[in-house]
């Protein structure tokens, strides 16, 4: 099992061959730059007819970063989209490895097909893999609908939303505050129901007075010290 990033050049087949050659060279340059941050022992680069695929071993976060960087690097004139999946892949070849096959590649290619230019789509399996590798990181991937590929296979798609993680943090913070207030209120409520409102309030007032008297004494002692010096 590995993560597969499929970078697909849009309408590649419809373009003149000279433009295909230019786009291909551009894509290779983008892949060279973006794969540089991944350890060589963790990535395998594959050629596709209309793009390139990068198989990333044991690093879903790295795969997602790579896809994002490739898209941002490709904004300048390279109509590329990215599809990411996590699935089974296998090296094949007669004697020496010369190709890779597997569902991971097929799904990544299908998912890339549904991504508009300069956008990223990931599969549910990749979201699960990301969640497994880095719990919480999957929160940046939000649903982007479902799509059916030419083999009538349905894919649940997700896209990246940089603000989704911040929104989630905010939700959890608000929930934390609300939960804290609720628990404190429950404690107070329990005390009031047990001792009665007047008794609790007079107890609180007594504690308040005692605390303020203690505070006043400390302030005075401090002022005295300052005067002596």
């Amino acid at each position, binding site marked *: 099992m590995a993560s597969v990033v499929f970078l697909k050049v849009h309408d590649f087949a419809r373009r003149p061959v000279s433009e295909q050659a230019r786009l291909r060279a551009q894509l290779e340059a983008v892949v060279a730059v973006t794969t540089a941050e991944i350890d060589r022992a963790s990535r395998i*680069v594959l050629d596709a007819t209309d793009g390139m695929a990068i198989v990333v071993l044991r690093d879903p976060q790295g795969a997602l970063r790579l896809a994002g960087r490739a898209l941002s690097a490709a904004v300048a004139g390279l109509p590329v989209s990215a599809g990411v999946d996590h699935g089974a892949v296998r090296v094949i070849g007669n004697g020496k490895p010369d190709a*890779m096959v597997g569902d991971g590649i097929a799904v990544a290619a299908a998912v890339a097909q549904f991504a508009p230019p300069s956008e990223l789509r990931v599969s549910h399996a990749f979201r699960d893999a990301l969640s497994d590798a880095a719990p919480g990181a999957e929160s940046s991937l939000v649903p982007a609908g479902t799509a059916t590929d030419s083999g009538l296979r349905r894919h649940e798609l997700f896209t990246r939303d940089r603000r989704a993680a911040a929104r989630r943090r905010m939700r959890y913070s608000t929930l934390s505050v609300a939960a804290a207030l609720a628990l404190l209120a429950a404690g107070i409520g329990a005390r009031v129901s047990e001792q009665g409102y007047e008794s609790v309030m007079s107890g609180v007032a007594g504690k308040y007075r005692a605390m303020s008297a203690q505070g006043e004494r400390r302030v005075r002692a401090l002022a005295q010290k300052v005067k002596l010096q």
Partner: protein
Amino acid sequence: MSRKKPGQIGRYKILEELGRGAMGIVYRAKDPALDRIVALKTIVLADDADGRKDYQKRLALEARAAGRLTHPNIVTTFDFGEEGELAYIAMELLEGVELRERLKQGPLPAAEAVDIAVQVADGLGFAHERGIVHRDIKPGNIMLLERGDVKIMDFGIARMRSEDFKTSTGMVLGTPRFMSPEQIAGMPVDHRSDIFSLGVVLYEMLTGSMLFAGEDTPQIAHNVSNVEHAPPSRHNPDATSMLDFVVARALKKDPAVRYQDAYELAADLRTCLAELRHRSAPAAEMAPDVTRTVKLEANENAPAAAVIAPETRLPLSRQFDSSAALQRVAKPGRGDRRLLGRSPRPVSLRRRLWNDAAPRLLFVTMLVAAAAGSYIAFA
């Protein structure tokens, strides 16, 4: 077909038999009226009267259409006629070798292969402009002449063959291994089908291997419709990346994204040819006396099962060194073996709280608030 050589067919005096094909026999013959040596192709007509009438009509139409094609890369048709059970077509007699024979010796040098493809594409472009589709472009219908000239044979009459490949949906004309996917499917074909067939021929010239091999016709048909080819440069190091693109575009399964015009294909192939010649020129100039030894890859007549490769097969990129990762996949360490072999697992609550900051904040806050609430309630 009779083994006996006829003395004369029509006005043509038969000199010798040149070969036998699915349609009939080809003779070297003499046209006494013009004192010209021609190739006389005979076609056996159908036995039943209705079928024969229809066949004769179509044959005459096709022969007339082919007769209008006068181009340096198309065999010239001089005459058409009928005698008894035979129809015949008198054509230009060519002295050369069929591409099919040449391919038996192995792949062609890239420049030579592209040069042949350019000439065939030019001939096709000329015919397509006049509304004529060959429908059976294959090495057996391409003749290599002296001085590097190339001619397409059987224009127009290729589609008249009686022993055509048949599918369950109907009759399909052509040779399955070189047919386009739409032709295989029995759908209407146009000039783009010839472009696909030329793409297959070019691929085989460059690699020396059969692109759509198979044990039987259904398997070949499946391969034509589904199997994607590996770039020719993987088999032939002389093939340029530009040539890979040209072949890929010619071999698109969908005719809408294939080359739409044979002249466009010819133009791109000329660019490849210029690149190939430019590439080989300096080497030749620098070492004119050195004999180059070129190691040719073995002819890959792959077994049928291997030919139907999964459609997800992607070749390793030659621009990037992936050997370290491949080594890791081939011989995984203990950790790799465990982690590369398993599917993602659901995240447990404990792992979630340990690794995910937002739920951890909620959990810790609730814990502290619960302790404070308990203190308030019970202390």
